[in-house]
């Protein structure tokens, strides 16, 4: 039986001009279940962000199979949306206009767009900031806009590329709680890339550890903590054991 998102033997090599070719992904396999929250941790440069971009449809792999719900991926589509690490908000548009970006590109009429974007802006806790410009917002607020924008087109799959890496530690913790709250309301399939093991365990159903470049899956850890997750779980023995295990697996990839 095919997994919801399935990757078999994905290979990708970057060939920048005047430089050595870079093998980003090598024989990469992955199975993602519908509605699950899967985190990918791995050393820098292992290809995890690259894989997200391949899944998003922005980059074509050199070889290998990649399907969603049985259909091969041929470029960006409304069934997938990404939240970017550096937010990627259009600085010349207001919050509302940014959130409506995907809907605008789908050709939706302005009244219909407004309804959806308003609902989402309220949901991410930015009510009242609709007419603000990105430079007037804090990092956490900008990422909420990014999240709202990604959810606006109602994608089946949410791709998150180290979305909280640019935020300070406290905002980061807050955003994790927020994310779970929002995700609980509408169980999308989420693929979450991060460097932080805590974050991965706290948020996910499963955590995948990748090898260093060229990357492929090294080991997958199921996270059996009950949902809804409470912040207090982060200080339980079960949590810390998982953290240690994952760290041991990851460590070799960083030092080796």
């Amino acid at each position, binding site marked *: 039986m095919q997994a919801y998102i399935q990757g078999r033997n994905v290979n990708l*090599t*970057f060939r920048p*001009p005047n430089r050595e070719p870079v093998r*980003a992904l090598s024989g990469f396999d992955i199975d993602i279940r519908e509605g699950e929250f899967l985190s990918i941790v791995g050393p*820098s*440069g292992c290809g995890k962000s*690259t894989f997200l971009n391949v899944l998003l449809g*922005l980059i074509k792999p050199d070889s290998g199979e990649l399907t969603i719900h049985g259909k091969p991926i041929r470029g960006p589509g409304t069934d997938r949306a990404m939240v970017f690490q550096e937010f990627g908000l259009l600085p010349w548009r207001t919050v509302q206009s940014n959130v409506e970006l995907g809907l605008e590109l789908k050709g939706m009429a302005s009244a219909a767009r407004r309804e959806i974007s308003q609902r989402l802006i309220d949901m991410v806790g930015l009510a009242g900031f609709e007419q603000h410009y990105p430079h007037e917002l804090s990092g956490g607020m900008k990422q909420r806009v990014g999240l709202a924008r990604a959810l606006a087109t109602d994608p089946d799959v949410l791709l998150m590329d180290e979305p909280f890496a640019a935020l300070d530690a406290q905002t980061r913790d807050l955003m994790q709680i927020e994310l779970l709250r929002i995700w609980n309301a509408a169980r999308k399939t989420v693929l979450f890339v991060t460097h932080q093991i805590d974050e991965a365990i706290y948020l996910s159903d499963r955590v995948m550890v990748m090898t260093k470049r060229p990357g492929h899956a090294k080991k997958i850890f199921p996270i059996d903590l009950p949902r809804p997750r409470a912040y207090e779980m982060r200080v339980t023995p079960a949590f810390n054991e998982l953290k240690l295990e994952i760290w041991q697996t990851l460590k070799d990839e960083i030092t080796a």
Partner: protein
Amino acid sequence: MAQVDTIARAPDLESAADATNREGFLARNRNVLLGLFAVGLFFAAWEAIFLVVPFNHLFISKPSLIALGWLDLLVSGDLARDLAVSAVPFAYGFVAAVVVGVTVGILMGWRVRVGYALDPLMIMFYASPLVALAPLVVVFFGVGVTGKAIIIFLLSVFPFVFNAAAGVRAVDRLLINVVRSLGGSEKDLYLKVIVPSVLPYIVAGARIAIGRALIGVLVAEFFAASEGIGYAIARFGDLFALDKMFACIITIMAIAVVLTEGMRWAERAAFPWRIGQ
């Protein structure tokens, strides 16, 4: 993050899948070769079009004739003579512009109050088309070297003023404090911090000023001159010697490009730490 950086600089959809490994001479010098190709194509087309379109030598010329005309001017020494005649006032005016412009500019940047006093004046002068005064200058000073040099000076002095002032104002105060704290004197400050900081700005100003100075030469010579390269263009036009007219125009273009691009190259070579303009 290094990984995200790679994404941002990742090749587009097409080239990532395009696994060509042509990293040879063709790929590396692609842009230059394309440029040369385009120029060659242009001249070839210019020459060839007259196989189809009737050629009226009183109206236009073609590359082959232009080249011959240019060689003629070169061999007869006319080209060199005209260029020399134009070059003398150019040199005088430009050098004067450098000396006066840089001095005033540095003063304006260094002494804040002088800056306050002169800024509006300079802006007004820079915004006015001083070229408009050219006829007046020529009528007053005549069409000799003096008149031309004055016009050239007027047109090319302001880029130096502004750029020198900007250069001084942009000097990093931190660096000054560093040198002072290490016991440097005023002279050390000038030589080790201020001059290296300001020099790139001045050279950039020179690049802009060259263009304006060339305009000065042409305006003076078009208006009322009896010699020089600008006059030559006008004269050949009157005589309907289109081939020689084009030859002179292209010569000036070449000189302008060499001077301007030369300055750009000098800027990059001498001041590699300057990323912007």
